[in-house]
């Protein structure tokens, strides 16, 4: 028995497109991750509580609806409230000029449209492996 990376993937808010995040779920599975997929329309508190119950190593969220700034802020606040400290990954249709602000809020990596699969895997693994070594 060995430790595996466990990551919670979710869509937040009203956004109802899940094609992208389901592809990412499959991608991470194909690289040995255990992905807990929460589906659409999750509140920030719901994502954090699920991640706590799952003892997840990371949280990944994706946005297509332009709500990323508001929702990420809510998520980070909910994590602070529930004392959850894991890396957050954010992807989807996120404009490049928002990346700095997202990272300032505490997002570990931002994936822009067109990021290739291997790069996503490498950057997610990189952050998690660094966390484990620390």
């Amino acid at each position, binding site marked *: *028995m*060995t*430790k595996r990376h466990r990551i919670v993937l979710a869509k937040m808010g009203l956004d109802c497109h899940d094609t992208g995040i389901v592809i990412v779920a499959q991608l991470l*599975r194909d*690289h040995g991750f255990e992905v*807990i997929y929460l589906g659409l329309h999750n509140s920030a508190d719901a994502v954090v509580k699920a991640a706590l119950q799952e003892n997840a190593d990371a949280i990944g969220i994706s946005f297509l609806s332009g709500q990323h700034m508001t929702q990420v802020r809510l998520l980070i606040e909910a994590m602070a409230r529930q004392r959850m400290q894991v890396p957050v990954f954010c992807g989807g249709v996120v404009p490049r000029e928002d990346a700095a602000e997202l990272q300032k809020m505490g997002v570990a990596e931002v994936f822009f449209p067109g990021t290739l699969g291997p790069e996503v895997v490498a950057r997610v693994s990189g952050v998690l492996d660094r966390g484990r070594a620390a």
Partner: protein
Amino acid sequence: MNLVDDLTAGDRRALARAISAVEDGGPEAAAVLAELQSRVGKAAVIGFTGPPGAGKSTLISAYITHLRRAGRSVGVIAVDPSSPLTGGAVLGDRARMASHIDDDGVFIRSLAARGHLGGLSAAAPFVVDLMDAAGFDVVIIETVGTGQSEVEIAGLAGITVVVFAPGLGDHLQAIKAGIMEIATVLVVNKGDSPLAAATAAHLYAALHLNAGGHREVPIVTTTATTGDGVGDLAETIAGLLSVRPPSPADAPRRLRRMLAALAAENLKEKLLRGTNPEIDSICDEVRGGRLGLAEALRQLARIA
């Protein structure tokens, strides 16, 4: 305070960490295991199994609503398959139970089967113990979507609910399948389908063929998406539980099952890895016809 003290005191974070510890077999696992045994045996353990897509997760979610109305706290263990190639998994059951996330009386944990066959994960019996010790009145286990031979749940749960749905196979498959025989309750879900009544009739016929009419297995029709019939299912399960309540003998039985699963996996891994000279020579002896299978198994068991 240690993990087991914390989780029995109601600390959900400690429960989540303890589950990971036993799942990963880390250094904390042995201590958790030892401390746990005196604190288990109170929860009612209910398994839900059946073919992929029959509606197990949706039905469990609807059933939880009934249990919560009756004031009972619920732990859920949702097992999904791991990829045999990469070991990764997409665990999607809890997405169908999302309506309970704000309820502190419900705790859901997804487990990947991690190469374990039989519909569960090797750590599953242990996670049942952890949830039991954490004080949940009811522990529900959802197996992976089963074919015909993943019947391990019957040894773990006091009550096994086998969920079928119209259009997922005909009555011949139901007769062939071992899962018919382990059912304490049979459910025909997707009761809103026009074929539901025919499926129930086929199951009824198959049941009486299979069990020779000796075993009375209730058949309940549900529509998990609307909640229709779920009250009947809840009542049926409650009735069965009142006849056979959880007993202190359940926990030692679970421990034995977990040890059996781990021992088997341990031996299998050693055999398949092929780096143990003692095992290699046993395999050679069998291949050369100098060692019988029964004796080979005895020797292998001693090595493991």
